[in-house]
């Protein structure tokens, strides 16, 4: 038609970082899911959702697009949890901070979590004696997750147990995903039903999160114990290490010794000490070192 032109094979479509150019927006721009940047000057138009205190929030690839890549511009996404259950989101972030000593912030617009840096390293909280707060293992793992290029998505779901989604690949095989569904009622119940001699968050938000991490594709896609009455399984190796590191100055987080709870007189107990486990094996009510597990059906009623 008159006035219309077209061309085929307009040259190479791609810019840096494995992404297509978007010249229709402006020359030299590249658009990704969470950002838009000028590839020529390596500067983004929007502020970095994962800001690094030592780097300008408008910077891309720490100024080095040749060696560094960030295809999505994100890592841990709590936007769904925050939008649907802000109380649980705050509790998760707060507990993760307490267990790691990191300062975690969540971007208002994107829901992406990041940790605060100081002089290029993680800024760490210290107690009155100058000791770093939290567990080294928890801190190391969370920094790894937040620095990772893999997106972990944390969602709210009040209707089922806390769990990790599975997806299907092209061949129909089921594989683990990186989506964790959090049931805050279930976690709050564990906190409330912990015996007085244990720290109430030994099976709280952060340690549940680290357990679920083991189920994710990112965490290796581990199943829970196949001998649930005999051991706690691979997914409790990291949480138990964290509990051990947190059990100082008279605080006792115990150790999760088995995966499944044992019932005595119609009540289900999850043992966190050897004494509690021994009592349960004798069909006796333990005097401490346990969490009472309320069935999910009962918890759902208490809305």
């Amino acid at each position, binding site marked *: 038609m008159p006035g219309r032109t077209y061309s085929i094979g307009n040259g190479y479509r791609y810019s840096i970082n494995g992404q297509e150019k978007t010249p229709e927006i402006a020359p030299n721009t590249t658009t990704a899911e969470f950002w838009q940047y000028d590839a020529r000057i390596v500067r983004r138009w929007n502020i970095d959702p994962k800001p690094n205190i030592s780097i300008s929030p408008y910077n891309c690839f720490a100024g080095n697009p040749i060696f560094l890549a960030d295809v999505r511009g994100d890592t841990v996404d709590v936007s769904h949890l925050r939008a649907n259950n802000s109380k649980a989101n705050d509790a998760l972030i707060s507990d993760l901070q307490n267990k790691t000593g990191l300062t975690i912030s969540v971007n208002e617009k994107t829901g992406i979590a990041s940790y605060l840096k100081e002089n290029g390293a993680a800024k760490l909280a210290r107690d009155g004696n100058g000791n770093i707060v939290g567990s080294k293992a928890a801190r190391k793992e969370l920094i790894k997750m937040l620095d990772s290029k893999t997106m972990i998505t944390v*969602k709210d779901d009040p209707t089922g147990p806390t*769990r990790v989604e599975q997806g299907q690949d092209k061949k129909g095989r089921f594989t683990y995903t990186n989506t964790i569904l959090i049931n805050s009622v279930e976690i709050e119940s564990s906190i409330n039903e912990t015996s007085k001699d244990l720290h109430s968050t030994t099976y709280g938000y952060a340690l549940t999160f680290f357990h679920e991490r083991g189920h994710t594709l990112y965490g290796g896609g581990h199943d829970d114990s196949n001998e649930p009455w005999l051991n706690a399984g691979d997914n409790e190796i990291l949480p138990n290490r964290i509990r051990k590191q947190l059990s100082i100055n008279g605080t006792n987080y115990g150790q999760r010794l088995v995966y499944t709870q044992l019932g005595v007189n119609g009540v289900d107990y999850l043992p966190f000490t050897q004494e509690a486990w021994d009592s349960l094996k004798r069909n006796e009510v333990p005097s401490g070192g346990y969490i009472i597990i309320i069935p999910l059906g009962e918890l759902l*009623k208490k809305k």
Partner: protein
Amino acid sequence: MQIIQKYLIAFFILFGFNTTDLKAQNSDGCRYLAVIDYIRTNISFNKDIKAFFKISTKKQEFVEFAIYDTVSFIGIGGLEERLKEKKFIPDTEINSRKYYEDKYFNSYHSSFLKKMNWSNDSKIYLSFSRPTDNYLLAELTDLNPYLNRGRKSGHGMIVFFKFNSDGLVEDILYAGFVYN
């Protein structure tokens, strides 16, 4: 064994609703039967069930399952995005928390499902929610609900069954999970 079960289903469909006991749950019962029949006969879905629960029986085309006779609320967590794509329910209802707040009901025993629960050695259990509008949510698990008093662990598959105007299963959506 499977043939006997199929005859049993057919028997219930043809003659099962004459008793007073079953009349109360007649419409729900039709939905349950339609779902059981679908799982018993759909080869493609059975392949996925076998893949999900890592069942390696090559000789057996269809998966054996036991039926839990307590009807409990099942949510749509994990299905939200695909429900939006498929438009099976209004967009305004597709939020796991809102769905729970609007549709939750206390669990109840179903004498109808109890009659359907023939004993077998299956390690897979089928639990139902209450039929709503033109759909029904069900769950397949590898943890015996009769022994676990509603506690969930292991693997679970939430299945959304959509019915057509004849009450037959028209389409399904499902999501797999590793619990806790």
